[in-house]
């Protein structure tokens, strides 16, 4: 049976994910990433409406930065699904490439691996940043890019190797949308 390129035909009660073509599965993966980030955004917005910005930030930070919460689970599930182990920067970059919270959001990135324990991660397009810039959400941008991402990237690095350091080389705000969004150095200290 030929792979399904989409699901425009009849409902199939015995459908398996493997019946779809790779391109269809990749589109579903992108959908999953949108849902993941969309759900988070809805919670944040709702809490901001009810109790104000400070409470939303406080809770958001707890979700993403507290040990055993969302970031830790996200790293653990992605590594398990793709069998990504190892404790070097190359392994962390592999994880970023398949992660809905990274690759699903940071839609255009480059990875420059100087060696297995040292690399530069550059984000050229970031969906949340584009949204915040478009809507003039400067507070939200500062919160996402600095208060969440700086400790968040460090937390992700530590989940691979306690000696790995995440250093922001460039962060928003940016002068024009031609600029890169952000740039990070990951290094395992010897």
């Amino acid at each position, binding site marked *: 049976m030929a792979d399904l390129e989409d*699901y425009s035909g009849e409902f199939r009660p015995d459908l398996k994910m493997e019946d779809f073509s790779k391109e269809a599965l990749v589109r*579903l*993966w992108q959908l999953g990433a949108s849902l993941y980030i969309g759900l988070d955004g809805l919670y944040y917005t709702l809490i901001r409406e009810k109790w104000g910005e400070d409470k939303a930030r406080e809770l958001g930070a707890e979700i993403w930065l507290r040990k055993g919460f969302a970031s830790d689970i996200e790293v653990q599930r992605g590594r398990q699904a793709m069998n990504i182990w190892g404790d070097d920067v190359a392994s962390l970059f592999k994880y970023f490439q398949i992660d809905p919270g990274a690759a699903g959001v940071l839609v255009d990135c*480059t990875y420059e691996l100087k060696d297995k324990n040292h690399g530069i991660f550059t984000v050229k397009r970031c969906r949340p940043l584009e949204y915040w810039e478009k809507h003039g959400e400067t507070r939200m941008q500062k919160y996402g890019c600095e208060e969440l991402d700086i400790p968040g990237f460090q937390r992700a690095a530590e989940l691979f190797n306690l000696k790995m350091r995440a250093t922001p080389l460039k962060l928003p705000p940016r002068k024009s949308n031609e600029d890169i969004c952000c740039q990070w150095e990951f290094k395992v200290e010897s």
Partner: protein
Amino acid sequence: MVELIWEDDVPVRKKTKGGQMKALEEYSGKYDPNIKYQDLSKDALARLLNAYSKEVALLSAFWYNAVKEKCGEEQAFACEVKVWEDIGAPEINWTREALNIQGNDLNAFAKLIEMGGAFARDVYDSTFDFKGPNHVVFTITKCPSLAYLERHKEKERIAKLCQILEPASMRAYAAAFNPDIIITPLKLPPRDGWDEKGWGGLCCQWELKIEPKT
């Protein structure tokens, strides 16, 4: 064709003569800076989808717990219901677009429900029993959230999620798809005494109908 080769600890892609790159069953090998999702096997992509479906459910649970700690259970549950109502329309639209699912009948709705990112196959199991084009009985036979809550004897939480949140969410998804769909819950947890009634193996059951307009 292109092959991944490591030089001085740095991966590079080189053109080679003939031979296609084999689809990756996992990503345990060397880091590839130019990897695309299309390089993964279909099994690997399906595993990723399942992982993300679980992450979506857990992320919502983390938010619920964080709000509960700071603002109380009642507020946390109200937020949870609202979020799952609000995510219905975008999820329906994203799935429609991703898989080119057209139409607004129950056949199309069944396809959308089973393909939605929050309800991955292999994580959840379900059946659609079509009684006619405008009448279907939807049964969920595997629900990891229910299994978890039953294991931890969280009866009150089960009642709230299954009897309040799920009907609200199902109705929001249906309304985003076709406002004429009428959803009636037939069997909802808690599952006390279900085995005796011959309902063993069911998690919940719903009737979906589109009433013909006169």
